[in-house]
């Protein structure tokens, strides 16, 4: 069992890399949603819950892990446990966009506790302390410059940003009446950032996310759930020179047009207000288990610049709308063989406007369709698990940057091939290795052609308590255009210890 977990862990690390494809340029994604990232690795035996894209290894096909509904925690988290861990990564290379840092170092220490309260439900709390360093960052002042909005804020220097701060939260769920569950998830993030040279902007980022979930156990092997999410965050940036220089800050509408502000102190706020709703269905028939999850999310982002004492000028507004649906089916064909299928769809519609004039600046649409299948063989003596996974994804983007007079349509067909192998010396020492290869006909994030992704991960587990994992991943652009043969490297490691 432990061996299987170890192997899963290794493969999961690979899939983390895969999931990072979605978040290029957003290394701080973990600040926003730590439970959906690598942190899940350290929780209980649900290693497969690290993300929901890995059909070969996702054993946790339920409302809590696949459906992300906190109400179902009562059914899934039955054992107490305390974990501590450390994660570190460094990303560097020329394959990046203009406002991406030349090098990014990220570390955290984390702590997770699961407490089963019996009839009072289950509580899972976590705390992280994050440290991130963005080196050689060209001008950009925003924490997430590339989330799709048509607004950028820059100064005039290339410098290093340091962000640090805690991230705390919990999931709590209990059975309200028989077969009717309710739960709550709260996350709170606080980040303090500072650039080391003129204009020395300081970032205070605060994010609160609240999820309320309901779940019904309709039949013995059928459950239905519903969750509602409220999102509220605020990023306050204050550029104030420590000497007597004025600071010059450029507020971009689109890629080209900016309004310059110069003063002793320039400050602005980026406020997010959003909500989301998801419904989930899980059921089993014979040896097969199926899970559905569909949802809708809307977030409004306001870029506001204070003036006077209490007034604020709304520089721009960006609206993010997203529909998603995913299905996973798993068949336990025999004691040795597991086969799974994943289908996932997401549609994102993002537009930004000039608030004062009510004019559309950008309108972008993204469509992702993903199909994946995985197969795993378990229970062999020397090699307790051997697994393979194959995924195909089609991506379409339709970008209409009206203010910049740039209109592009991109389409990409990507495929991903992964495999993993576990080798057990004895029950107290397990080794594992995983590899993944991906090919993108078009990287719709950077616009580059023919991008390849290579990854190798490995690690070991000792005494069923301590795990160590390393990973090396590389993006490589082999096209003959602007970014010829540029690469991006990613080294990371993870250490986890279970305390009880």
């Amino acid at each position, binding site marked *: 069992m432990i061996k299987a977990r170890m192997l899963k862990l290794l493969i999961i690390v690979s899939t983390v890399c895969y999931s990072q494809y979605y978040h290029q340029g957003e290394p701080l994604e973990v600040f926003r949603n730590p439970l959906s990232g690598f942190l899940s690795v350290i929780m209980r035996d649900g290693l497969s819950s690290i993300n929901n894209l890995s059909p070969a290894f996702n054993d946790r096909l339920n409302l809590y892990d696949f459906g992300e509904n906190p109400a179902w925690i009562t059914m899934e988290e039955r054992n107490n446990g305390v974990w501590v861990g450390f994660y570190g990564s460094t990303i560097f290379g020329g394959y990046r966009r203009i406002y991406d840092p030349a090098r990014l170092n990220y570390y955290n220490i984390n702590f997770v506790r699961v407490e089963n309260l019996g009839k009072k439900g289950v509580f899972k709390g976590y705390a992280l302390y994050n440290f991130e360093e963005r080196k050689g960052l060209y001008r950009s002042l925003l924490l997430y410059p590339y989330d799709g909005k048509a607004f950028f804020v820059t100064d005039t220097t290339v410098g290093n940003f340091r962000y640090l701060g805690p991230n705390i939260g919990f999931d709590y769920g209990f059975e309200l009446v028989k077969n009717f569950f309710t739960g709550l998830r709260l996350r709170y993030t606080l980040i303090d950032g500072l650039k080391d040279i003129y204009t020395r902007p300081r970032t205070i980022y605060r994010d609160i996310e609240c999820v309320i979930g309901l779940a019904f156990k309709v039949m013995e092997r059928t459950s239905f759930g519903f969750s509602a999410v409220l999102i509220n965050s605020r990023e306050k940036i204050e550029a104030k020179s420590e000497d007597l220089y004025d600071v010059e800050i450029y507020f971009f509408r689109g890629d080209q047009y900016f309004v310059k502000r110069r003063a002793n102190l320039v400050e602005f706020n980026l406020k997010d207000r959003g909500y989301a709703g998801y419904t989930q269905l899980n059921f089993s028939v014979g040896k097969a288990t199926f899970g559905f999850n569909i949802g809708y999310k809307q977030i409004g982002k306001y870029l506001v610049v204070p003036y006077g004492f209490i007034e604020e000028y709304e520089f721009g507004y960006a*609206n993010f709308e997203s529909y998603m649906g995913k299905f996973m089916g798993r068949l336990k064909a025999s004691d040795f063989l597991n086969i799974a299928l994943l289908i996932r769809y997401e549609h994102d519609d993002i537009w930004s406007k000039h608030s004062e004039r009510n004019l559309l600046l950008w309108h972008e649409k993204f469509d992702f369709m993903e199909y994946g299948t995985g197969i795993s063989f378990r229970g062999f003596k020397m090699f307790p698990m051997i697994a393979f996974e194959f995924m195909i994804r089609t991506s379409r983007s339709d970008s209409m940057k009206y203010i910049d007079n740039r209109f592009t349509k991109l389409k990409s067909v990507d495929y991903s091939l992964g495999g993993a192998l576990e080798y057990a010396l004895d029950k107290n020492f397990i080794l594992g290795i995983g590899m993944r290869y991906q090919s993108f006909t078009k990287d719709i994030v950077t616009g580059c052609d023919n991008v390849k992704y290579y990854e190798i991960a490995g690690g070991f587990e000792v005494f069923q308590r301590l795990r160590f994992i390393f990973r090396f991943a590389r993006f490589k652009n082999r096209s003959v255009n602007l970014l010829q043969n540029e690469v991006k490297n990613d080294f990371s490691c993870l250490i986890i210890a279970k305390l009880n």
Partner: protein
Amino acid sequence: MRILFIFVVGFTFTVKFLTILSGCSPEMPVLYDGSGVMKIVCLWDSLGIYIPLKDAKCIVTSEYGIRIYYTDENGVLDIGGLPESVYSISIRGIHPLDSRISLVGVKKDIEVKAGQEVIDTIIAMPTSGYGIVINEIYACGPVNNIFYFFDQFIELYNSTDSVKYLDGMIVMRVSGNNEGLGPGADEGSDGDIDGVTYAFKFPGKPGERNYPINPGQFIVIASKAIDHRKFVATSIDLSNADWEFYNQYSPNDIDNPDVPNLLNILPYRTTEFLINLISDIVIIATGEDENVEDGVDIETIVDGVEYQSNPHPITKKTLDQRIDRGYVLSPPRYSGMSMQRKTPGFDTNDSSVDFEVIPKPTPKRQ
């Protein structure tokens, strides 16, 4: 069968729920930005005949800063895909018969709306001047952290091929009249500009010939003609300035006896001559209108420059357009930078075109 029923009910519920949620989403604007078009016909007046001004440099200014375009062979400036904003355009061409003569024109407050085309005409006129221009203004102060900005100076330049004389000329700071149309505006349209706060005069009277400025010569007038490097290492040495502003009514102003003075002609001003670090107006007049308190006759003004920290329309230009049609975008406070004409004496009466910001001051064009 029951599973199917649950699935159908669940799916219906979900679709209904999502429809309600998506209905709460804000509406996307119908009009889009970046769809404005501006067609400006640039002509110049040649003895009553309007001739297209081809290949003229066009400086287009809006809240989005300054952009440079050129007219086509028909003298038309055709810009599409413009974001909605209020624009100002300065054009500058070369006289086809005499390349030494500049043809300049300006049009302000052109409002370009999304999806609309604006058609307008600018008539360029030949420029002429007195010959003495304000060539450099250093106002922002050196790099320091003790709020030191006393090393300000103004540099004059004789751009003609004949000797000019400074006798009786007045150098003024114009920063008053804030209750009216603003500093440097012709309040009441009586042919003078208002808002003079400081006025310092060269010795002598207009028409006298005691203080020459030779062709191509730079004259530096220092706020304090001392070596400022003794106080701030990043500052400059102005002890060899040509002239010094000295307020004889001030108990604190320091006089360098080796440097001749411009004296204050407004006795109620008892502070030394200093200008704002990032936003102000400096003018120089012949001195024929010595009663500057009720305004300075525009006819007597030799040159004037307005500098501002933010572009139009964030900051409103106020200096009368007969003196200067533009303004200089000033460098930051305490940056040690200076504002200087792109080439000595280059004067189209539009400071937006004529001036540039340079990394450090160059008194006497060092």
